[in-house]
């Protein structure tokens, strides 16, 4: 079964609103990473949170990690139309990253 499940699968919001995406994983991890993928393009690394961290910020991004629940969330504040993309969490175990199925975020102008 797939490790790393995002929720929701799709999210549509208005510009200026906040967007929250959740991720669950199955095994113990070294860290958890979030990536963005615009249509027809490769993935772009957004943020990495280590297993001993609970929260991390980067610009308009806020990531939380709850290792007891094996879950993470990505919050994008004050969303913009340019944030429209697919967002993937990737759980890190050993030397391998395992990606989830992704959340498709649409930000309407």
């Amino acid at each position, binding site marked *: 079964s*797939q490790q*790393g499940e995002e929720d929701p699968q799709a999210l549509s919001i208005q510009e200026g609103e906040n967007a929250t995406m959740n991720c669950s994983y199955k095994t113990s991890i*070294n*860290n958890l*990473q979030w990536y963005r993928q615009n249509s*027809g*393009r*490769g*993935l*772009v*690394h957004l943020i*990495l949170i*280590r297993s001993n961290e609970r929260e991390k910020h980067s610009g308009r991004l806020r990531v939380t990690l709850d290792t007891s629940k094996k879950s993470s969330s990505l919050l994008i504040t004050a969303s913009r139309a340019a944030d429209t993309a697919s967002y*993937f969490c*990737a759980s*890190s*175990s*050993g*030397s*391998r*990253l*395992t*990606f*989830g*199925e*992704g959340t498709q975020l649409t930000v309407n102008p």
Partner: protein
Amino acid sequence: EAGVAQSPRYKIIEKRQSVAFWCNPISGHATLYWYQQILGQGPKLLIQFQNNGVVDDSQLPKDRFSAERLKGVDSTLKIQPAKLEDSAVYLCASSSQPYSNQPQHFGDGTRLSIL
């Protein structure tokens, strides 16, 4: 710095034919990855190289897929013979070190369609 380069961007072949993809990682990046991304899914690791050695190819269908990185720089991924289920985007990524606490840098991929 220049990003990860991949070619071709698109490829259409018939089933049972062969196809090859090429990747040039970011200069100085010793670790190179090939992923398969089926439409609507996340990327799935096929193979990971450290310089010209294979670190992880446990998810590579070795009966039809092969990959090499002979000089520890660019890499090719080959499928022979192709099946309908191989229709996907093939992404190449690189990182400066092999540890999974390093971000991976992705190319824009090759979109493969099997007829």
